[in-house]
């Protein structure tokens, strides 16, 4: 049974989770735990809190697997959106989360010249969006990724980058709106 489940597409696996197939839930958790935990710890900067939040994410996914709509997003995007929303709620309650200065460089798209393997993975995941992201000025990349992947507000980004809040807002706005065009051409 598990061997068959391992071969299922993400969509089919989530459908099996919706059917309350116990083994499917285990495979689902195993398949996505690194991504979910990775986003949680990136946003929260706290391993214990991220562990708990990742567990809650899978609980939410299990409860709402039947509502997943493949027209709107991939399973991975759907799951990470749940993670992001939970993390934002947690951050509201627990402000002043310390920021790891090395985080920004970890979030930036990988250069194919420096790390071709990871750059290929990025390209596979993000498609055209990844290409557009890599084409943004570095300061816009940093602002957009801090706002999306690290859940930082413009005010927090201004502190991190040592720039006025208005400049941080402009970088986020300009970057996101350039990426809009790419998304319009990329399927979920």
């Amino acid at each position, binding site marked *: *049974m598990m061997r*068959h*489940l391992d*071969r299922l597409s993400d969509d*089919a696996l989530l*459908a*099996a989770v919706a*059917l*309350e*197939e116990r083994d*499917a*839930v*285990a495979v689902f*958790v195993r398949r996505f*735990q690194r*991504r979910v*935990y*990775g*986003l949680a*710890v*990136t946003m929260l900067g706290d*391993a214990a809190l*991220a*562990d708990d939040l*990742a*567990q809650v994410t*899978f*609980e939410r996914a*299990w*409860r709402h697997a*039947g509502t*997943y*709509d*493949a*027209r709107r997003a991939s399973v991975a*995007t759907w799951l990470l*959106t749940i*993670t*992001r*929303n939970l993390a*934002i709620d947690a951050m509201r309650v627990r402000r002043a989360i310390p920021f790891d200065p090395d985080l920004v460089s*970890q979030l930036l798209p990988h250069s194919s010249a420096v790390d071709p393997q990871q750059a290929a993975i*990025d390209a596979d*995941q*993000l498609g055209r*969006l990844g290409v557009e*992201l890599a084409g943004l000025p570095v300061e816009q990349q940093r602002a957009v990724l801090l*706002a*999306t*992947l690290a*859940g930082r*507000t*413009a005010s927090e980004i201004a502190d991190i980058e040592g720039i006025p809040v208005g400049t941080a807002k402009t970088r*986020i706005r300009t970057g*996101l*709106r350039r*990426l*809009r065009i790419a*998304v*319009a051409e990329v399927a979920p």
Partner: protein
Amino acid sequence: MSAQGSVGCEQFDVHADELALGQLDEPLRSALLAHAADCPHCRSLLDSLGTVADRLLLAAPRVEPPAGFETRALSRLDMGAARPPRRSISLWWVAAVAGGMVLAGAFVAARLDGEPKAATATIVAAAGGEVGSVQLIAEPTPHVLVTITAPRPGPATRNCELQRPDGTWVQVGWWDAADVASGVWAVGIDPTLLDATAMRIVSDGDVLATAAFD
């Protein structure tokens, strides 16, 4: 474009990025969302920015969680409260593809490629003509998958029945035509029904379509 309450398109545009990122607090958030509900232009802007923000999450670093995470996550599900009640039948979407019934069928067929299939048959309308296909699938759990590629008008509620080898018919589920916009419907079945010889779609006692498994 239109204004809603105290928010207009210009103000919406100023805050749209933070709104899409989930970083705005009340009451501004609700005021902006109310405006977007009435303004197609701003709603489109918000949708596209939200899509960017969501899809960028795929670029998040992958990090191995602490040891024992999988066990803890599964234990949490065991201990957790029951799921919300499902419909009278375990109806679920295998996939839904905007743009047409045929596309949806092809998509699902591709997604399920590689899964062991017990049987496949063509669905023929009572008035004649192929309308889709039906599959009995054993893994990951026994289920019947109905793909309607040429929908016909008719009553809203459709019952799906399978025929056992002894000739008796068993209702396995139902759907509302309005719900199945993708043309794809599936339901879990008893494993003994994987030996079914036929499927029929019935509404108000009338047989709308049938399929015979080889």
